[in-house]
């Protein structure tokens, strides 16, 4: 309604019905609420990435033998890789459902900036699918004999790396939303971009584990995250426009 009145170029309400002029903040809140409600309705599905992470984390001691020192050495890196892999399936379907039922076209028509709506979607996605993974980290760390002193650094590294990956993944998910469903395409596109993120995050954990200063890789991650928060939604909006056009 607000869009129609604006596009007419005047303030008269053409249809005579009361029109609430939606602000950007209002649109974002509405979108967040919608995503949370939808996620709550399929809350059983949200456990699947957690279960996947736990199973893969359990596989490593089976495959490598239970030697505690070996597990402690690789735990940080392995947990990071597990989180990246566990994020992939959910990332792939970030925009697909909305593209198929026409919601994305409404996003394009909305007066609010598309980049803002995309950023809201990424935030909702991160809160519903990735945050549980980070919360479960202590349990996974225990499975892999992660030294306890490294755990806070791992959590912080994940809190910086996972939003960054979610933002990068949102651009790729928007690009692939209009394409034929291909299982491995998302992984193929995301992994090159995820390599530096994994390098820095794992570097921070490894540095903390060997008692060396770990703040520098975390700062790099934070800088990249800030850059991504600004730029990724713009790229995502461009990709969504490509995906929606018939």
């Amino acid at each position: 309604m607000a869009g129609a009145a604006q596009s007419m170029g005047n303030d008269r309400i053409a249809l005579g019905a009361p029109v609430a002029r939606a602000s950007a903040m209002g649109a974002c809140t509405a979108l967040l609420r919608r995503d949370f409600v939808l996620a709550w309705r399929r809350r059983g599905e949200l456990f699947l990435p957690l279960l996947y992470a736990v199973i893969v984390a359990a596989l490593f001691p089976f495959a490598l033998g239970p030697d505690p020192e070996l597990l402690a050495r690789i735990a940080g890196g392995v947990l990071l890789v597990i989180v990246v892999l566990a994020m992939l399936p959910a990332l792939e379907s970030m925009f697909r459902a909305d593209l198929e039922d026409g919601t994305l076209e409404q996003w394009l028509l909305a007066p609010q900036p598309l980049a803002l709506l995309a950023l809201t979607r990424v935030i909702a996605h991160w809160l519903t699918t990735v945050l549980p993974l980070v919360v479960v980290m202590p349990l996974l760390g225990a499975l892999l004999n992660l030294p306890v002193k490294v755990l806070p650094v791992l959590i912080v590294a994940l809190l910086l790396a996972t939003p960054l990956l979610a933002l990068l993944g949102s651009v790729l998910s928007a690009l692939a939303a209009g394409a034929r469903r291909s299982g491995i395409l998302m992984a193929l596109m995301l992994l090159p971009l995820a390599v530096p993120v994994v390098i820095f995050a794992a570097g921070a954990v490894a540095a903390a584990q060997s008692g060396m200063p770990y703040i520098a890789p975390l700062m790099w991650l934070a800088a990249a995250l800030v850059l991504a928060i600004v730029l990724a939604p713009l790229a995502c909006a461009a990709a969504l426009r490509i995906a929606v056009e018939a």
Partner: protein
Amino acid sequence: MLSPPWVKGAAQPLPHNGWAGVLGECQWKWGRIAERPGISENMSRSYVPHFMHWLGSPPNFYRFAGAWRPWLMAAALIAGAIGLYGGLVLAPPDYQQGDAYRIIFIHVPSAWMSLFIYATMAVAGLIALVWRVKLAEVIAMECAPTGAAFTFITLVTGSLWGKPMWGTWWTWDARLTSELVLLFLYLGVIGLYNAFEDRRRGARAASLLALVGIVNLPIVHYSVQWWNTLHQGTTVDFLDPARSSIAPSMLWPLLVMALATHLYFFASLLGRTRTGLLSLESGKQWVRALVDGQPEQATGAPT
């Protein structure tokens, strides 16, 4: 102000009867500009934009590419022969690496090409995204396989060079890792493009992906300066030749091979773009005439 050589009376200053007078005097081999349909006095009288506009039409590009391709390939083969002769026969063995260093004559040009082709792909992709030029879409997508090929060659020849010199087939230093990431970026572009039913939409999506990955290019190039790498540092510095640490007898074959690979890439790109244009424009009259070898009969059915 200089006037182009084909303007009649080029030595005199331009007459003051306006652009129409000047336009009327311009000629080039496709005919007088003023007599071409759609040209107004306000349009540029310069040769270049008209040529680019002409080139943007698929059947024109098809013919242009078909004419230039064999010459570029011949030049590439000649330059390659000269470069390889200079590199394998004329250049002396390296005092440290012996004859193993001769891999440089394919490794370094391939590495330069892997970066150059990605930049070309990104520029063509940008044009395709912003201006929706069909030819730019095809060119951007047809760059990717050749770029992936050169990146693959770079990684494999680098591996074969690293084994005798460093004692290892692979190491995860910044230069090698970022070059491997570049290969994955190429494969991602190819994969994304082929995942779309609509080729034009797929080209635009893959172009956006290529642009997102452009950040990797300065990382690959400056990796040996920014990080401690096993890979050797900058050997050939175009901006500061005094810093180049390579002997002239080795440098000239290297540059000739770089020229040869560039010429090969242009020849290959022209050929691939021709094929890409055919499949994209398969419903059009000119493609059917080309494939059939005879003009299409009037059938009454819509084409």
